[in-house]
């Protein structure tokens, strides 16, 4: 499951959704809003997504992880809108029979989401200005 959410991420509900009788390992990753980036003090983030394509690409990533690793359940949700320090911006969780697959699949999902899914963050700095981030990576 992959979704874009305008509402705060329901971490407890998502963890519950990973339950399976064969799940001996659960790995969850939370990406949270921090108060600095590249030497500047940050006091909030805004996220924007091309929702239709973001959800399609996110679901593709989840299916790729499912085919590469021996997992039970995979969920990933990314926020859009205005977030405060400490808010969960992205949540990825995987349950699996064993820990190696759970760690590997969770890492795969979050790395691919950050690299490929059409979501953008705008950093709001304590000085009052803001900037959209467009990293210098080569598009895939």
């Amino acid at each position, binding site marked *: 499951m992959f979704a874009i959410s305008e509402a705060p991420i329901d971490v407890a509900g998502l963890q519950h959704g990973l339950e399976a009788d064969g799940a001996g390992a659960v790995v969850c990753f939370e990406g949270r809003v921090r108060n600095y980036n590249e030497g500047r003090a940050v006091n909030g983030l805004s996220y924007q997504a091309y929702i239709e394509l973001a959800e399609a690409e996110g679901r593709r990533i989840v299916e790729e992880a499912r085919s590469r690793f021996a997992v039970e359940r995979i969920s990933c949700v990314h926020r859009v809108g205005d977030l405060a320090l400490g808010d969960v911006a992205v949540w990825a969780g995987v349950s699996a029979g064993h820990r190696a697959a759970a760690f590997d699949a969770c890492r795969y999902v979050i790395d691919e989401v*950050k690299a490929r899914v059409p979501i953008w963050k705008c950093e709001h700095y304590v000085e009052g200005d803001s900037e959209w981030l467009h990293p210098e990576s080569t598009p895939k």
Partner: protein
Amino acid sequence: MNYRLLYFASLCDAAGCAEEQVASDARDVSALYAELAARHGFTFTPDRLRVAVNGAFTDWNHRLVDNDEVVFVPPVSGG
């Protein structure tokens, strides 16, 4: 031809709108981007962008038809 453009992040700021209807003689996404970049002052070169037509990623040679929805996808920064 008429196209519907959606703009995100810094492209939205540069265009001054999140979407617009564009009447254009451009017949592929490459020509359309050149036209819009000139009009709106987009600074991204095409090699830094991906392009989507009607909700799916495609390539820069994609032939456009009337009423296509086109999105130039700037480098992403989720997470």
